[in-house]
C-alpha cells in the first residue's frame, strides 16, 4: 500500500495546474515569440531589426514602468491562481470509493464507488511525461463520469493504481505477491503529493543529490517499458513487429479511400479544367499523411499482459496510455479480418466497454482496440486474457472454427441455404453458437468477423423480421450490449432458430448473471480458487492453438 490510499485527503503533483494548462502555456509562449521574433533574431545572430515590435512601442511611449507592473501583476495572479487551484484540488481513496474535490469558485466533489470501476487508465502525455508526471483516470460507466487525477508523480500513479485495483477487487488483506516483497521505491524528494495535506515540505538538505536522483529517475522512467514490473508479468504476451504494423496500416480501408482520391486527382489534372477538385482533395491528402503517422505512433510500443486485476493494454510512443480492465468489464469482443489482411493472416480485436477514457485521440481508436494487428496465435493469446472460460479446449476449438471455417456442420447454427438470397457469399458462415458463458456470432466471408458477447454482460436480445425475410422464412437477431465499435448482429437466421436463440440466450444471460461475481473479482479467491482462469497470464497452452 502506498500512503495515498489510506483514506485521507491528498494533493496532486504541485506542477499540475501548469501541466493541465500545458497547451495554453505553449500557445502563450508561441504568441510572445511570434511577436518578438525579430528581437530574438537580433539577440542571437546580431542581424539588425528593420521595423519596431511591441517592446519598442512601449519603450518609445515611456510606459516601461507600467508594462513591468502589469507583467508582475499578471504573473502574481497566475501564481496565486495556480497555488489555490493546487491547494483546493484534493483526492481521497477509501475502501469503498475514490473522491475528488476541486475548483476555487465553483467547487465540485465527485465520488465513484470502487466496485463500479470499469477501468483504470494511466496516461502520460509527452510534456508531463518529461517532468515525470502521469494522469490517472478511473472510468466508471456513464457519460463524462470519469474521475481524473491529473497529475501525479509517475511512480505514485503506478502505486495508486495497484492499490485502487486491490481495494476494488474485494481482497481485504494485502496480497502476498512479488510486488509486496520488493521494497517500495523511495518517492522523489520534495514531492508533497505524498504527504497528507498540510504537512511541511521535505527537508532541504541534500538538494543537489536529490536533483541528481530526479534527473536519473526521469530518464529511467522515460526509457522504461510501460508495464510496471511488480504488478504485471514483465513480458507482454504479444509483440507487433514493425513491418506488420506498417503493413496493417497501409493495407486498410482508408488506403483504398486515399487511392481513389489520388486517382480522381490525377484524372482531374489530366483532363484539366476542374481546379475545384484539386482544391477539394489535396488538403485532405495532406491530412491523411497525418492520420497515418498518428495511427502508427499510437500503435507503436503496444503491449498487453494479464495481471491479477485484469488485462493491461499499453500504447503509444510519445504520449503513452496504459489501461487496466478488470475482469468482467468487457461487454463485447469483435475479431475482424479485412479482405486485404487475409493473405497475411492478420486479425484485429476491438471491444465494447461501458467506461470510456476521455483522453484518447484518433476518435477513440486506441481506447477500444485491444489488438491493432496480430496473427491467429496472437488472437488466441489475447482472447485467453480477455474472455473468461477461453482456457478450456472445447470453446477454444469453437472460436478457431468461428474465425477461419468456411461453414458447414461445425458447431455453429448456420443460416439455411435460402439465406443466399440476402447473403450470397457468406450465408454458409453466418451463424451463432453458445459456449462457455459467451455467445459467438460468426459472419462475413470476404471480410471475416467473429463477435463474442459474454452472457453475464448481455443487456437484452432482440429478433426482427421484415417482409423480405418473412417470405424467405428468415429473421435477423441482435444482441444488445453497451455502445461501442462491435455490433453483435446476425443478418440472416432461420425463423425457428431465431426463436430458439432468443430463449436460450436469455436463459443463459439470466443464469450467468446470477453466478457473476466480477464486481468484486478477487473476493472468491479468499475462500475458493486462487485466481480465476480469465486473468491467468498466457502460459505455454496458448501456443497450442496456433494452426
Amino acid at each position, binding site marked *: 500500500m502506498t500512503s495515498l490510499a489510506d483514506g485521507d485527503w491528498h494533493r496532486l503533483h504541485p506542477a499540475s495546474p501548469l501541466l493541465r494548462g500545458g497547451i495554453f502555456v505553449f500557445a502563450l509562449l508561441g504568441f510572445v515569440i511570434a511577436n518578438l521574433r525579430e528581437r530574438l533574431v537580433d539577440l542571437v545572430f546580431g542581424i539588425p531589426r528593420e521595423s519596431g515590435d511591441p517592446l519598442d512601442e512601449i519603450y518609445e511611449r515611456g510606459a516601461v514602468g507600467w508594462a513591468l507592473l502589469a507583467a508582475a501583476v499578471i504573473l502574481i495572479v497566475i501564481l496565486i491562481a495556480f497555488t489555490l487551484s493546487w491547494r483546493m484540488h484534493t483526492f481521497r481513496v477509501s475502501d469503498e470509493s475514490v473522491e475528488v474535490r476541486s475548483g476555487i469558485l465553483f467547487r465540485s466533489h465527485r465520488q465513484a464507488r470502487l*466496485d*463500479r470501476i*470499469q477501468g483504470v487508465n494511466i496516461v502520460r502525455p509527452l510534456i508531463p511525461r518529461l517532468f515525470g508526471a502521469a494522469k490517472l483516470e478511473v472510468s466508471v*460507466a456513464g457519460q463524462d463520469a470519469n474521475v481524473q487525477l491529473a497529475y501525479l508523480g509517475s511512480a505514485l500513479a503506478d502505486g495508486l493504481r495497484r492499490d485502487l485495483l486491490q481495494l476494488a477487487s474485494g481482497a481485504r488483506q494485502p496480497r502476498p505477491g512479488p510486488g509486496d516483497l520488493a521494497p517500495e521505491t523511495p518517492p522523489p524528494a520534495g514531492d508533497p503529493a505524498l504527504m497528507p495535506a498540510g504537512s511541511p515540505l521535505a527537508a532541504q538538505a541534500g538538494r543537489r543529490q536529490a536533483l541528481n536522483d530526479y534527473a536519473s529517475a526521469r530518464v529511467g522512467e522515460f526509457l522504461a517499458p510501460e508495464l510496471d514490473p511488480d504488478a504485471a508479468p514483465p513480458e507482454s504476451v504479444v509483440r507487433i513487429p514493425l513491418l506488420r504494423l506498417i503493413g496493417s496500416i497501409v493495407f486498410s480501408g482508408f488506403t483504398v479511400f486515399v487511392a481513389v482520391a489520388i486517382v480522381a486527382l490525377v484524372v482531374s489534372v489530366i483532363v484539366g479544367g476542374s481546379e475545384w477538385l484539386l482544391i477539394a482533395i489535396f488538403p485532405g491528402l495532406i491530412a491523411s499523411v497525418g492520420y497515418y503517422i498518428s495511427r502508427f505512433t499510437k500503435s507503436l510500443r503496444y503491449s498487453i499482459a494479464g495481471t491479477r486485476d485484469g488485462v493491461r493494454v499499453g500504447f503509444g510512443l510519445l504520449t503513452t496510455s496504459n489501461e487496466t480492465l478488470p475482469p*468482467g468489464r468487457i461487454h463485447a469482443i469483435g475479431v475482424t479480418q479485412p479482405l486485404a489482411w487475409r493473405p497475411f493472416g492478420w486479425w484485429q480485436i476491438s471491444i465494447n466497454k*461501458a467506461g470510456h477514457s476521455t483522453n484518447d485521440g484518433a476518435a477513440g481508436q486506441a481506447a477500444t482496440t485491444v489488438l491493432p494487428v496480430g496473427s491467429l496465435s496472437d488472437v488466441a493469446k489475447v482472447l485467453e486474457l480477455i474472455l473468461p472460460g477461453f482456457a478450456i479446449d472445447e470453446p477454444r476449438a469453437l472460436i478457431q472454427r468461428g474465425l477461419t471455417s468456411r461453414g458447414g456442420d461445425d458447431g455453429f447454427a448456420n443460416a439455411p441455404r435460402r439465406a443466399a438470397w440476402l447473403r450470397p457469399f457468406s450465408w454458409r458462415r453466418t451463424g451463432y453458437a453458445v459456449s462457455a458463458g459467451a455467445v459467438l456470432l460468426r459472419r462475413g466471408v470476404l471480410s471475416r468477423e467473429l463477435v463474442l458477447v459474454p452472457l*453475464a*454482460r*448481455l*443487456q*437484452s*436480445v*432482440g*429478433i*426482427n*423480421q*421484415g*417482409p423480405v425475410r*418473412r*417470405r*424467405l*422464412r428468415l*429473421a435477423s437477431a*441482435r444482441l*444488445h*450490449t*453497451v*455502445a461501442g465499435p462491435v455490433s453483435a448482429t446476425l443478418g440472416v437466421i432461420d*425463423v*425457428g432458430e*431465431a*426463436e430458439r436463440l*432468443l*430463449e436460450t440466450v*436469455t*436463459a443463459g*444471460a*439470466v443464469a450467468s*448473471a*446470477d453466478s*457473476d461475481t*466480477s*464486481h468484486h473479482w478477487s473476493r472468491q479467491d479468499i475462500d475458493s480458487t486462487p485466481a480465476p482462469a480469465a486473468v491467468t497470464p498466457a502460459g505455454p497452452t496458448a501456443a497450442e492453438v496456433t494452426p
Partner: protein
Amino acid sequence: MAEQPVPDYPGSEYPGSDLPAAGPPGSDAPVVDTAAAVAPVGARLDLPEAGEWKRVSPKYVMVEIVGTVFFLLIVCAVAGTLWLLLDLVWAAWVGALIALITLISLALEPRRVRSIGYQLRADDLLFRRGIMYQRFVSVPYGRMQLVDITRGPVARLLGLADLKFVTAAATSGVAIPGLAEADADALRDRLVELAESRRAGL
C-alpha cells in the same frame, strides 16, 4: 424460482383485441395480414411457447391518429405553400404522395397498436411490436437501469402513459406505449421490485 412471479395486474387484458394469441405453430390458421397470407406456413416470427401476451389500451390508437393527423396537416401546409406561393408543381406531387402513404398507415394504425404486447416471465420481460416489421425483445429483469414513465398531451387526456424500460444498451428499445396510468404505475413498481431481487451489476 419457486413461484412464478406473474403479477396480479388487473385490467391489462383488453378483450377487444382480435389479434390471435400466440399458439402452436400449426394453429395460426386465421390470416392476420397479407404478408402472412403469401408467406409459407411458419414463416412468421412468433414465440409458440410464450404465454399470454398483455396488450396495450385500444385507446392508444387515438394518440397515434392525432399524431399522424398533425403530421399530415404539416405536410399539406408545406406542400401547399410551396405549390401555391412559389409555384413549385413537384411539391404538390411529393406532398400528395406523402399524404397517401400516411393515410394508408392511418388505416393500419389500429392493427399496429394491437400488435404491441408484453409479458412478464419468470426472469425476463418479453416485448413485441409490429406486423409488417416484427420485433421481439427479451430483457432479463436484472439488467434494468431505470424505468421511465412519460405522458404526452393527448395520452394524458385519455388517461394513458408510456413506459420505457432502460438498460445499459441504447439499442434495447423496450418502450410500452399506451398503458392506463394506474397500470403503468403498477407495472413500474413491479418491474423495479423484480429487478431488485435479481440485481446484476453492469
